[in-house]
């Protein structure tokens, strides 16, 4: 196991967040002649050295295919890959490793549920409830099965502050409601939804709930048993892990009910040309050779986060978000979209007379990386009647200097436009 400086942090009661930046080699570079300010973490966060080292160690010393070989190397790879699954189980407090499925990311996880419940759960005329603040990854998979499954999509509107309209949500339930799919944290607005309450309401109607946790996992401690959701999906690359791997947590009763949407090796029990029976959970849903290195990297990312502590990360980021909000609000002409009192990481903003694309281009000239566009959440853009926003999204390695650089950068953009 690779040991790095963060290993020693667990014993420390206080975490020096200014030091954490040094764990991320990618941040130590110049862009267009300026030190990089990376504020595009909601799109993808950077990997700490410990995750990079763990992936390298796997490639250099442990690589082999998992689950099948009797030889030592295969055993080693399998142990490391399954150990990572165990770390994820612990991270989200899932009752069992069987309920923690590897996927390629949040998108695949949601597609898996949509496909898996088609023909097994959904009945002609059923309705599902999504919200106006969903990422396209929690809209399009349902549209793809809409005809085949015979379902209708109902949408929870959002308020001007960017919160779910809870009264409207409650009223959408009826005897035909068969699933609720909601984001935990909005990628475009930063709103943290009251997931426990939302799940409880759905369960009163015996309706299962899928939560898109992609934007929530890096910022707060997740306990799927406390939330009591039926599915929880997230991606490694937004929580300091590698791309190409993600997780679908699902309650066993639901995963048993679902059919796998992809078939192949790894996921079978017995195969004849007449019939195939599936392997047990979680392997039933994991056809083909998985991205083993990425899975192990995800395990290392979980370890990294747990060594610091999610509570400390939440508190630090929340303080930074408050600072950033105040600073941005002080810029004349700038309007923040998404002003819910309970927010994580995201500062989405617009100017009436400067296009987001121009802001992003001119910030990049100053070495500042933000995202501009519709953030794959076009219904949110329509709600606020803007074509695009600029979005600064924070991670645990960001600090007040980054915010100050962003503010200076925006002032410079304004100057160019005057």
């Amino acid at each position, binding site marked *: 196991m690779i040991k790095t400086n963060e290993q020693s942090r667990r014993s420390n009661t206080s975490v020096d967040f200014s030091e954490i930046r040094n764990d991320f080699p990618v941040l130590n570079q110049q862009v*267009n002649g300026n030190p990089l300010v990376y504020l595009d973490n909601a799109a993808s966060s950077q990997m700490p050295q410990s995750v990079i080292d763990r992936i390298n160690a796997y490639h250099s010393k442990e690589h082999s295919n998992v689950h099948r070989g009797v030889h030592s190397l295969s055993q080693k790879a399998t142990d490391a890959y399954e150990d990572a699954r165990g770390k994820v189980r612990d991270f989200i407090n899932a009752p069992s490793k069987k309920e923690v499925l590897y996927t390629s990311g949040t998108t695949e996880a949601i597609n898996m549920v949509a496909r898996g419940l088609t023909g097994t759960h959904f009945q002609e005329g059923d309705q599902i409830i999504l919200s106006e603040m969903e990422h396209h990854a929690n809209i399009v998979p349902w549209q793809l099965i809409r005809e085949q499954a015979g379902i209708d999509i109902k949408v929870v509107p959002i308020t001007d502050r960017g919160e779910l309209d809870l009264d409207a949500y409650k009223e959408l339930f009826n005897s035909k409601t068969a699933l609720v799919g909601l984001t935990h944290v909005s990628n475009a607005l930063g709103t943290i939804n009251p997931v426990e309450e939302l799940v409880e309401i759905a369960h009163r109607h015996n309706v299962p709930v899928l939560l898109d946790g992609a934007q929530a996992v890096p910022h707060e401690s997740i306990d799927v048993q406390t939330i009591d959701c039926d599915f929880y999906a997230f991606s490694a690359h937004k929580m300091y892990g590698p791309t190409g791997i993600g997780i679908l947590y699902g309650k066993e009763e639901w995963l048993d009910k679902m059919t796998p949407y992809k078939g192949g090796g790894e996921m079978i029990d017995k195969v004849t040309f007449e019939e195939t029976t599936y392997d047990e959970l979680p392997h039933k849903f994991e056809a083909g050779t998985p991205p083993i290195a990425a899975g192990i990297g995800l395990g290392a990312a979980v370890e990294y986060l747990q060594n610091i502590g999610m509570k400390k990360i939440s508190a630090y980021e929340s303080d930074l978000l408050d600072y950033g909000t105040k600073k941005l609000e002080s810029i004349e002409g700038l309007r923040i979209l998404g002003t819910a009192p309970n927010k994580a990481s995201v500062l989405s903003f617009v100017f009436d007379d*400067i*296009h*987001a*694309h*121009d802001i*992003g*281009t*001119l910030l990049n*000239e100053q070495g500042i990386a933000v995202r*501009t*566009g*519709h953030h794959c959440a076009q219904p949110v853009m329509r709600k606020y009647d803007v*074509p*695009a926003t600029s979005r600064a999204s924070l991670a645990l390695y960001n600090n007040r200097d980054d915010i100050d650089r962003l503010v200076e950068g925006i002032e*410079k953009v304004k*100057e*160019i*436009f005057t």
Partner: protein
Amino acid sequence: MSNKETNTPNDIDEIQDRIVREFSALSDWTEKYKHIIKQGDQLEPLEEEHKTEENMVKGCQSNVWLVADLEGNKVKFKADSDAAIVKGLISLLMRVYDRQHPETILTKPPKFIEKIGMQEHLSATRANGLAAMIKQMKIYAMAFKTKLEQQAEA
């Protein structure tokens, strides 16, 4: 229109060189972008009726519209964008390609973009509609070239 034709060199290489010279006189990146934005302000406006879904060049972050017509044996382009930098770059492209022969449009790449340090605006990311716009201009040029050839044969 006639004014433009008498005062502006029509040779596409000369126009590109002129643009490069304009930019080389600018001291830093802020001046460069200010100049680009100013170019956009001078762009011949595209009538609202042309800003349709059909005339839209798909780009993820900003809307770009492009229309083209054949005037004699030359291509008349009109374009616009809702983002200022893209609009400025469009204005530069218009200086180069508007009212040129289809053959010229097809054979002369916009070399000035790299020379003025704007090549990253051409990168093939989904963030950008400019590369798609240049491609669309060439598609129009190709269509008009074929049309002119058919007319010549008839």
